[in-house]
């Protein structure tokens, strides 16, 4: 064996090289984060500031982008506006300063609700089905287990556009086009493969002794599953749920092909936020900011589980 001091010099980097690596990584991180910060800043700019040249880093912050995102407005002549009752809020005031009046709420709240309903609905369903299947695969001798697990994971690699054609036809036949139920079922089918693989890894790590003790105590299999396995798998289930939620939240290809109105989610909606004469960038940036913030929070919370999620449970960290 070798002395600790020699080992130290090889495995641990020297102070200088560590500082140098740190600088390079921080530099990369700053470059990588710039586009996101830029979108965030743009969401608080006026339309003209958002396309100014040279780009304005800091400008008088305004919530106009957020107002435009959530309201419809129409241009009116100044005479008409002058005779209106006093503005009721900041958005009203901003609209009038541009010669517009607010004509009502925009489609944005509905699209956000769709994203939340479809995201949470499919997450719940995939985690529910995934937990059951993962438990069975982890604890019982299932004939053809490896083939079934392979089949389940392989469905995740299907190109969405390739399966979208028959699903479109099938949904048209069943009346599921542009419905939340249809989208929930579809996202569940995509997510359940990840859920099974991830949860099987988590459940494999729970010692069987607990269940066996419960069985000896007179519980049935299902009671033992509910009373001993579920509580211990709670962290794994929560992590899996977040991964499923992120997928459903971000999904675009199916959403754009199978929904057009009532069940449309945010990703196909955001690119079509337009103002007078083209895209209203502050409003698009506002929508992007609102859309992305929950994901950023989850990523920061989940950074420890992240690797398991993206390698389908194969690599632990």
């Amino acid at each position: 064996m070798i002395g600790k001091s020699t080992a130290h010099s090889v495995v641990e980097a020297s102070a200088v090289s560590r500082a140098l690596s740190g600088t390079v990584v921080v530099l990369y991180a700053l470059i990588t984060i710039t586009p996101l910060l830029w979108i965030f800043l743009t969401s608080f700019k006026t339309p003209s500031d958002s396309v100014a040249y040279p780009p304005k880093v800091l400008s008088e912050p305004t919530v106009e982008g957020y107002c435009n995102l959530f309201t419809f407005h129409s241009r009116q002549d100044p005479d008409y506006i002058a005779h209106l009752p006093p503005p009721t809020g900041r958005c009203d005031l901003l609209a009038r300063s541009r010669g517009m009046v607010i004509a009502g709420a925009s489609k944005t709240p509905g699209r956000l609700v769709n994203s939340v309903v479809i995201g949470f609905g499919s997450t719940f369903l995939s985690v529910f089905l995934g937990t059951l299947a993962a438990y069975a695969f982890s604890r019982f001798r299932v004939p053809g287990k490896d083939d079934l697990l392979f089949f389940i994971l392989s469905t995740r690699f299907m190109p969405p556009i390739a399966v979208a054609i028959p699903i479109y036809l099938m949904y048209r036949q069943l009346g599921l086009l542009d419905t939340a139920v249809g989208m929930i079922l579809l996202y569940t089918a995509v997510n359940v493969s990840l859920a099974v693989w991830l949860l099987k890894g988590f459940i494999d790590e729970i010692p069987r002794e607990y269940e066996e003790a419960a069985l000896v105590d007179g519980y049935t299999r299902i009671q033992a599953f509910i009373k001993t396995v579920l509580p211990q798998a709670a962290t794994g289930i929560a992590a899996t749920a977040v991964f499923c939620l992120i997928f459903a939240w971000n999904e675009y290809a199916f959403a754009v092909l199978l929904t057009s109105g009532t069940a449309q989610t945010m990703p196909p909606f955001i690119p079509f936020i337009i103002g007078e004469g083209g895209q209203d960038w502050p409003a698009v940036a506002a929508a992007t900011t609102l859309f992305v913030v929950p994901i950023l929070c989850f990523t920061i919370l989940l950074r420890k589980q992240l690797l398991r999620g993206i390698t389908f449970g194969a690599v632990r960290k």
Partner: protein
Amino acid sequence: MAQVTDASVPSSARSGPMTRSGGMSDRAIAWLFISPTILLLLAINVFPLIWTVHMSLTNYKANMGWMKYKSVGIGNYRDILTDSDLWEAMQTTAHFVFWSIVSEVVLGFGLALLINRKFRGHSFWTTIILLPMMLSPAVVGNFWTFLFQPQIGLFNYVVSFFSGIDPASFQMIGDVKLAPWSIVLVDVWMWTPYVMLICLAGLRSIPDYIYEAAEVDRASAWRRFRSVTLPMVMPFLMLAVLFRGIENFKMFDMVNLLTNGGPGSLTETVSITLKRAAFEKWQTGWSSALAIILFLTVFGAANIYIKALNRVKQR
């Protein structure tokens, strides 16, 4: 398995280990738990796939459902494999897949080596670097069109700030030469952290004593890298390359919103060709055949990927 067996059950149910009386047999529970997942996948993945195979042998057009369609045999497949536009789309896809993966591997592996030196604050900065890969590719594609705006976009400004090139002299999305690189650039921005994360897991799986042994042998730093680090990280790197290869081969959302295949059909990847044929030209039969070809390609690659995954798992 150490279940408590009940000897009094009928022999027909004794095929699997049994729980105590009153509960269902383990085999029944296993099927009860697994079958909903399998049924869902059969209904939403396998059945549509079989339907696609059927349609791919016809000249069906989904927007004219009332019309009688007829079987054309393997005609669609023959058309596709001899279609020069499609081969162009394949080349576009190959260019995109190749250059994005090469850049991601170089950057991601490099970053992982640096982060593995555990400088102060490394976990905070790692988390910052991870953020892009968690976002919606469609939303990313959309806001990069803003950064790539000709003349006024932030990207053009930054490039001209550091290089002195006139910001109005080039367009990332509209230019024939630059557009294929714009999709590579955004993909690299988004997915380098993925490769980095997997490489980092590979680096952390190398036990210290191997490096210590290499030190005893007076191996140079380069030699240590070549004969210890690289081979040990290789299976992980393979995993990252395979997964990104599959994902980028079927890439649709980001490219659709960033360039929508343009200018012309210069950045039209295979998925975009498929979307145009299926949902704009409504050539359902032809596009079903293309879908099957794509599916078989991806399925083959996924097969290798899952094998690699299991190999990494066994380490």
